[in-house]
């Protein structure tokens, strides 16, 4: 019975399975508030099952990966899937062996938050912005000549190539995570690293928030020929005021009433919807 509680080892096959599931689910469940976190959960699900034999730990892990997450599929998704897999493995082992749990929930979370934005920038520029169009540009003359290869070559080529190096990133991410985790477990710099990751994670979250949360007023008043553009006035006060207000409002709602996400979404939808309907937002 106690034997049963030991985390199983994560194999190469597990890793590939995770990568494939991530690759497949990718933007299917894309949602306004969490972006594509469910895809990451789907990717990790079987691994987490192998690692956490205790339902409470498993549940916590499931919820962890349903949190806000967005990145580019290959560079970001591959690398992070790998890293997170190894971090979860280390964490599961620490829990099972009753060791001090240095790979905390926050550490895993902040690692994701800290990496996802920068890797998305890399991936979007390289994969979507460059590699894709190199394939297309090569095949374009074939299409202009009426050949179906003009369509098939860029699609198959790009898909294949990115799949392959995405998996490479997954494996490397896993190794990287293992190496880091091993050092972390023993190292006494652990607290420092956790704190550093928290700072970085929250910093990147702020940057991401500034571009993902878009709330602006379209309200204008034209009295006797003078135009009052509300958004201009707000920008003269504090650019970013409205999105920040919305974020903080929900933050304080959670602080006061507990984490009631559905309520927050319905409430926010209602408020924004009404304001938008009356052309205030």
């Amino acid at each position, binding site marked *: 019975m106690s034997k049963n509680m030991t985390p199983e080892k994560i194999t190469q096959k597990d890793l590939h399975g995770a990568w494939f599931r991530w690759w497949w689910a990718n933007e299917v469940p894309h949602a306004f508030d969490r972006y594509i976190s469910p895809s990451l959960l789907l990717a990790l699900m079987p691994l987490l099952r192998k690692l956490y034999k205790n339902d409470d730990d498993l*549940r916590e892990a499931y919820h962890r990966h349903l949190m806000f997450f967005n990145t580019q599929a290959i560079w970001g998704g591959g690398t992070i899937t790998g890293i997170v897999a190894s971090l979860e493995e280390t964490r599961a082992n620490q829990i099972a062996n009753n060791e001090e749990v240095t790979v905390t929930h926050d550490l895993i979370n902040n690692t994701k938050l800290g990496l996802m934005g920068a890797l998305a920038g890399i991936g979007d520029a390289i994969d979507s912005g460059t590699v894709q169009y190199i394939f297309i540009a090569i095949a374009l003359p074939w*299409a202009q000549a009426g050949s179906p290869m*003009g369509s098939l070559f860029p699609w198959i080529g790009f898909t294949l190539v990115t799949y392959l190096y995405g998996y490479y990133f997954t494996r490397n991410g896993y190794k990287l995570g293992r190496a880091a985790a091993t050092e972390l477990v023993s190292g006494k710099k652990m607290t420092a690293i956790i704190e550093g990751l928290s700072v*970085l994670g929250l910093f990147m979250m702020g940057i991401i928030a500034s571009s993902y949360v878009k709330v602006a007023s379209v309200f204008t008043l034209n009295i006797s020929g003078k135009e009052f553009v509300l958004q201009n006035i707000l920008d003269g006060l504090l*650019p970013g005021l409205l999105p920040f207000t919305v974020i903080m409002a929900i933050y304080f709602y959670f602080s006061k009433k507990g984490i009631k996400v559905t309520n927050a979404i319905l409430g926010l939808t209602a408020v924004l919807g009404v304001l938008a309907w009356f052309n205030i937002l």
Partner: protein
Amino acid sequence: MELTVVQALLIALFVAAVQSRGLGYATLTMRFSPMMTGLVVGLVMGRVPEAMVITAGIQLVYMGVIAPGGSMPSEPAVATAIAVPVALLAKMEPYEAIAIAIPVGLLGGYLYQFRFFLNTFIIRLSDKFAEELNDKGLWFSIMGLPIIVSFALYVPVMFLALYYGAPFIAEFTAANASSQLFHVLSVVGGGLAAVGIALSVHVIGKKEYIVFFILAFFLAYVLKPLGVTMITYAVLGSVLAFIYVLVTRLSKD
């Protein structure tokens, strides 16, 4: 236009599959570039070589399109699915055909956002299934339901546009009530990320560290005209984090 019901349906299904992203990352090029859609239309209509030539012309219009972080105004796959038949049947130039397809591409973009909106509620289901450790439920709510929703959104629209003609859709898109609805949808969509972000910030360990969130948030607004890249911010954030740790921990020894 003179597409048969079956032809129109086949094309509609293909577009819905692409827009649902149901084939994973393999749908990225399919969504951003008109090439595959053009080929499929050619196959369905039995006029592949001509379709390829037209599609190559459309590709030039959409060269360089990418959608960091989500949606874009006009969906290339959607617009192409209309433009290629139009060009084939009405013997138009590719760019003229695109002009006709634009309102449908626009509607395609709104539907993509609407899909995000509906998924926002589907995730509540995932939350529940996660709580219950119900893996089947998770598969259903993460993959199954969103794909079904996508098809429900795109198939009728594409079919109608293909069968009854693009103007049919254009009228709807331009109608006052619907454009106001789209406005509401995009405002709500623009704001809902706040929930996910507030949640992430809320669950962090040390409450004081929210100051770094605030710093980054307003810094990003201050520096907006300088076009700072995400990786540069990551470097600066890491530097900040390192100095913070240096100052609070390491310098203590």
